[in-house]
């Protein structure tokens, strides 16, 4: 039997099994833990499908950030008096006691809806042409004019500049709206207490320099190989969260102005690039001159890394920080 096919079958079986149990298991903690392994299997799938950029991002997001967010929220929701109670954390409809538990008719209706939708999607996919280059050729033809050597980075920061720009806008919006939800003006009230855990502090002190090194390495790599601002930003966020967990001030010591500056750095840098190119005489807006595009992309990438790191770590710290009473 073909080994690659065997690998595919195992991987898909694992993915489906994990997501089925993730949604079906009665124990919520089990679902949370399974979600972490879901990220792991997904990133194996990205490697298999030759998308190493995505695998890097998924490794950082799935193994690191998503786990922190979900486990932390789970711990926050767990009632204090029954910390280990499997039954309480289970399907008990504590969060929405007003609506009734779904009846058989509800389930049947949902099943029919989902079944027909999956069938329709399947038909649509089967209808796709078996071959087709998409935009690959176009990207490779214009690659030497883009200022970088790695096609995915070129698409992100040159050819489809708007997407990335708006994406950073979404990040800023998420950070600001989470501030509203938590009733805060900035993060300074969320200073961590001194943790007496020597082991944890030592571990984090050891890991931090390596993480900084990895952030810089990934950023440098984005120019010519899989890597870049997104992956570096996520690792930066993980580092800031880990520092905060071990009792260091991390980003909670930033003043409001400084924090906001980090928040919008990426978005503002892209806006700046747009304004400059628009006011350049013989260029159209967002058209980079060839000799400058490498430098412009690097500046944007550094700013975007900072923004992504600060926004994601603020999201985690804000949603895990103590509930105000």
């Amino acid at each position, binding site marked *: 039997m073909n*080994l690659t096919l065997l*690998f595919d079958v*195992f991987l898909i079986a*694992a993915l489906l*099994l*994990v997501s089925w*149990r993730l949604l079906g*298991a009665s124990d919520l*903690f*089990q679902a949370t*833990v*399974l979600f*972490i*392994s879901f990220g*792991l299997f997904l*990133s*194996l799938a990205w*490697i298999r499908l030759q998308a*190493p950029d995505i*695998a*890097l991002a998924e*490794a*950082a997001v799935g*193994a*690191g950030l998503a*786990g*922190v967010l979900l*486990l*932390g929220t789970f*711990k*926050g*929701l*767990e009632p*204090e008096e029954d*910390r*280990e109670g*499997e039954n309480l954390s289970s399907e008990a409809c504590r969060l929405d006691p007003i609506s009734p538990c779904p009846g058989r008719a509800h389930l049947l209706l949902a099943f029919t809806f989902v079944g027909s939708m999956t069938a329709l999607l399947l038909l649509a996919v089967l209808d796709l042409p078996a071959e087709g280059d998409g935009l690959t050729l176009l990207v490779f033809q214009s690659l030497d004019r883009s200022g970088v050597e790695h096609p995915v980075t070129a698409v992100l920061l040159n050819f489809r500049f708007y997407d990335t720009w708006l994406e950073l806008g979404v990040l800023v919006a998420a950070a600001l709206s989470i501030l509203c939800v938590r009733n805060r003006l900035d993060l300074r009230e*969320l200073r*961590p*207490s001194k*943790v*007496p855990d020597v082991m*944890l502090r030592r571990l984090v002190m050891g*890991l931090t320099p390596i*993480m900084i090194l*990895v952030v810089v390495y*990934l950023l440098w*790599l984005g120019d010519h*190989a*899989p*890597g870049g601002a997104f992956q570096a930003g996520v*690792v930066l966020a*993980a580092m800031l969260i*880990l520092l*905060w*967990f*071990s009792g260091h001030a991390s980003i909670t010591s930033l003043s409001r102005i400084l924090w906001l500056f980090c928040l919008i750095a990426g978005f503002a840098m892209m806006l700046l690039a747009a304004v400059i190119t628009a006011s350049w005489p013989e260029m159209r807006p967002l058209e980079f001159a060839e000799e400058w595009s490498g430098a412009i992309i690097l500046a944007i990438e550094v700013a975007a890394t900072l923004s992504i790191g600060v926004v994601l770590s603020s999201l985690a710290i804000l949603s895990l*920080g*103590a*509930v105000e009473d």
Partner: protein
Amino acid sequence: MEKFYLGVACFLLATMIVGLVRVFVGPDQEDRLVAVQLFGTTGVAILLLLAEAFDASSVRNAALLFTLLAVLAVVAFVRSPGSLGEREE
């Protein structure tokens, strides 16, 4: 040799699927987390083997990220419930 590496990777993937049983049955929260920790290490091994089999060096960076960030979820788990940042454990 590529075939061999791929075969070992398949075998490791199969052990991961078997190991999922421990996540399903528990019974303690720690058991489930330890099982996921084993998945993490197995996943790193698979990534390294695939890097060799597909001859893609960037896969090793993904493995590096996995090992680097493995502690994060567990640290979130062992901190005290609901009071991160203000109370002691």
